[in-house]
């Protein structure tokens, strides 16, 4: 759950807070869990909701590419990314936040959390087909954003 929260929030302290919060919620609401889904699916849903709420609290989603360039520090380094990809992944994490909620969730669960597509569909309470279409749209949007923030001067980073 920490890894998922980190994918959304890109901040260690906030992700730890969310992890604590999720633990407490699971502890207190365990008796209300109906067993309609896997426990892990239930915990993922709680984590995603709390992370999205936290993002909403921040209210710092940029609206234009210019704002994106100005607003975002391209400095978040996910600790799990391979060393040779570290630099490039900073740009990716900077643009992930511009995605719409559902696309963001599908992308984070599939590529940051590395979950199988079916599990992503279960967590998002949707079909496999719609997860695949969300991922396609997410990738295409990310690509557009990335091209718009292409670091001129660094011909190939």
């Amino acid at each position, binding site marked *: 759950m*920490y890894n998922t929260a980190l994918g959304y929030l890109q901040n260690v302290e906030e992700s*730890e807070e969310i992890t604590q919060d999720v633990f407490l919620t699971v502890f207190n609401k365990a008796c209300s869990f109906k067993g309609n889904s896997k426990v892990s699916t239930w915990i993922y849903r709680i984590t995603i909701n709390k992370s999205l709420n936290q993002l909403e609290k921040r209210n710092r989603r940029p609206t234009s590419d210019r704002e994106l360039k100005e607003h975002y520090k391209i400095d978040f380094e996910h*600790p*799990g*990314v391979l060393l040779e990809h570290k630099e490039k992944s900073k740009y990716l994490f900077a643009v992930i936040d511009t995605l719409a909620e559902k696309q963001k969730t599908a992308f984070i669960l599939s590529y940051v959390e590395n979950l199988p597509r079916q599990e992503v569909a279960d967590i998002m309470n949707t079909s496999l087909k719609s997860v695949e279409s969300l991922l396609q749209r997410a990738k295409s949007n990310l690509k557009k954003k*990335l091209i718009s923030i*292409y670091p001129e001067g660094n011909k*190939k980073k």
Partner: protein
Amino acid sequence: MDNKEQWAGDVLNSLSGIEKATPNIDLFAKITAQLPQEKMVNIIPLQRLSWVAVAASIIIAANIYVFSNKIKSTETIASVKTELIKDYSLYTKY
């Protein structure tokens, strides 16, 4: 494919081989410190329990009393019946 597209494609693939991030070791200790020591348990006060015991013993005593009375009354009914039968057979002889 121009440089920008190539670069964007590379960035999109930069999550391949990603491993799960793990939090600081002390996070678990922080969480366990926040959890309540034990879940709220409904404790019945001793005074209420003694009232329940008194009520239960009264009910049991009343049941025993009624039951023993019933046995006695069935015994007397039986003896009256045998007397009556004796009397009846006395008269039917003659």
